[in-house]
């Protein structure tokens, strides 16, 4: 296989699985800013080692292992305590059980739930999730305390989660 074909195949696989990979790194990284850097490093390493990837095996499982290793290195360098290996293994098992249709249904439900949010909450979510600013800076921009913004986001996420659960339950009944 030529390098160009390798690249096409790699990008196709990455496109299919990057959300899962990103989600896993979010689960084990110290925070979301770090998850982005870790995803960057993981993807690069996967590309470097793509010749070693065994076709027919799970691309995302392979990526998770590399991402896990990168995360452990980061935590070690920062002298942070990572989740135990055993806990991460258990999370991997639980995640593997979640099927793709469920994930897609959840994202569809999220879209509908966002529409139902009050405008002010929706604007806060936009601001918090689409910029690189830390919450403290988001808070300063909207004239609130960081603690207040954390609380609001927590409340909004909880509301979104409940809405998603209700939507999925309704779809299952239909």
């Amino acid at each position: 296989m030529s390098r160009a074909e390798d690249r096409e195949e790699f990008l196709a696989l990455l496109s299919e699985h990057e959300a899962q990979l990103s989600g896993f790194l979010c689960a084990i990284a110290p925070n979301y800013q770090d998850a982005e850097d870790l995803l960057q490093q993981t993807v690069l390493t996967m590309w470097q080692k793509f010749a070693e990837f065994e076709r027919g095996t799970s691309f995302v499982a392979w990526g998770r292992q590399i991402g896990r290793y990168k995360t452990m290195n980061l935590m070690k360098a920062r002298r942070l305590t990572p989740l135990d290996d055993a806990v991460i293994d258990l999370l991997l098992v639980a995640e593997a059980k979640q099927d793709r249709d469920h994930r897609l249904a959840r994202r569809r439900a999220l879209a509908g739930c966002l529409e139902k949010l009050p405008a002010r909450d929706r604007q806060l979510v936009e601001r918090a999730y689409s910029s690189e600013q830390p919450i403290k800076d988001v808070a300063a921009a909207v004239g609130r305390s960081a603690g207040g913004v954390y609380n609001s986001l927590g409340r909004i996420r909880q509301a979104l989660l409940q809405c998603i659960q209700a939507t999925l339950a309704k779809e299952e009944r239909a």
Partner: protein
Amino acid sequence: MNKRLSTDEHRLFDAACSGQLDADSHAVLQRVLRDSEEVRVRYLDYLALHSDLFGAVRAARVRERFLATIGVAPQRTSERRRRYRVVGAVLATAAALTLVLNAQRGAEDKTVATASQGLAAQEGEGSWRGLIARVNRVEAVEWQPGCRTFVESDLIAAGEAMVLRAGILEVEFRQGAVVVLEGPAHLVADDANAASLLQGRLAAVAPPWATGFRVDTPGVDVVDHGTEFAVNVSGAGADARVNVVVTEGEVEVLADQQVDGGRRLLAGEGVNATEDAVEDGDDAAARKLTEQLPDRPELKNAVVVGDRWSGWAPGSEGQPCRESAWRYFTNRDGEFGDVQGYKELVWHEADNCYRPADRETSSWFSQHVRVHRDGGHPGRGRDQVWDKIDRYSITGFVVPEDGVYRIEAGWLERMWAKRWDRDEMLDIAVHVNDGPVLMREFCNRDSFVAFRQALGELSAGDTIYVGVGPNGADFNDKFRWGFYVVRETSPPGGATAPNEGGLAATD
């Protein structure tokens, strides 16, 4: 999806997502995740919500950088993104998100829109450039066509690639490691203390403050433990071969997926690694490349006594920092350098930072002063206040023992401002005790400045003050920074020329 989150679970998961877990909560999280499959599923579901909202934004940026790294042209990048994106859209507006996610309904690989307009709107408020290295030397370099070319003093962002067909390139990483790359070679700057060598030959020297400097390769990974070493990557894919040689100190060679406990190599030793084996071996050409490393004795004659980043610790509500040798101030009642006018900042839990105790009452000119783990914000500038004094965000370090001290690997990055009409520079300055200001550097529109400073002979209990000021006005003055306080070992004093050469030389 499993049963709803309890309030405690929600609080715990939210803290984990936001990087705000304390040690006790971390232990609780570990326990509940270990003990219950249902909790694990709920945790993953909760994280999936974050990931869907946030990860897609980040994933989109990662993809852009990755495609640039592997040399895919922008036009094709765009086509490719439209063709392949699964999650695809970024979530700048709920409306855009709705469109995007609905577009995926039943057809996962279909084209989806990006919400770049929304992101552009956010960029209007500034962003971090993520600069992590600088080019020190470019010698007879022939660059790979289509890739970025560099000249001396160019700044390098995380994820940027240096691809050269021939010549010598010297790069200094933000944390202090200096790398010499010999073409043909392909190096990607990963972060302030790590790089990926995809092809070619590299020599590196890592001072004590850059211990842990890491070079990832398609085979083994190399981690510095205070040393000078060289790495050569030849071949590709299954035929890749990696040679590592050590000329001073010690490195650790890690196999794929190995976090620690790798093979240790001492000065004079080397290995050749292939897909199948890691064997003793040498690489004379790589070893010779270490002769191209800069002759800077200050990279080897000091020990680290203070690290601004890792020394930072949260305090007790309303109290000044007493957790370590670090102290935080603002010059509320006088000029920077006049310690009689310094007022100590206090911990504010909700904002996760040190800030003035009287922020809500009298001192409006210092109300924006902040110190948090990554950086902070100065107060008002002299052009904004009646007493014409710049208010600084000041970090103090109490010297633990007598000796000759320096500041090393100092850097400051200001949030990248898009509003040039409101753009002002930041300044960074240093003094010891009530002595004169020893250094003042300005962070201009490059948004990045590096600094080093000799401090001379200090006694235990002396305080080093490093302040970041608004330089006139405090518009767009959020900053991130770091520096190390080091004590010289040998030779003491004069042999070092701390302000000559290196990352800070021409700033």
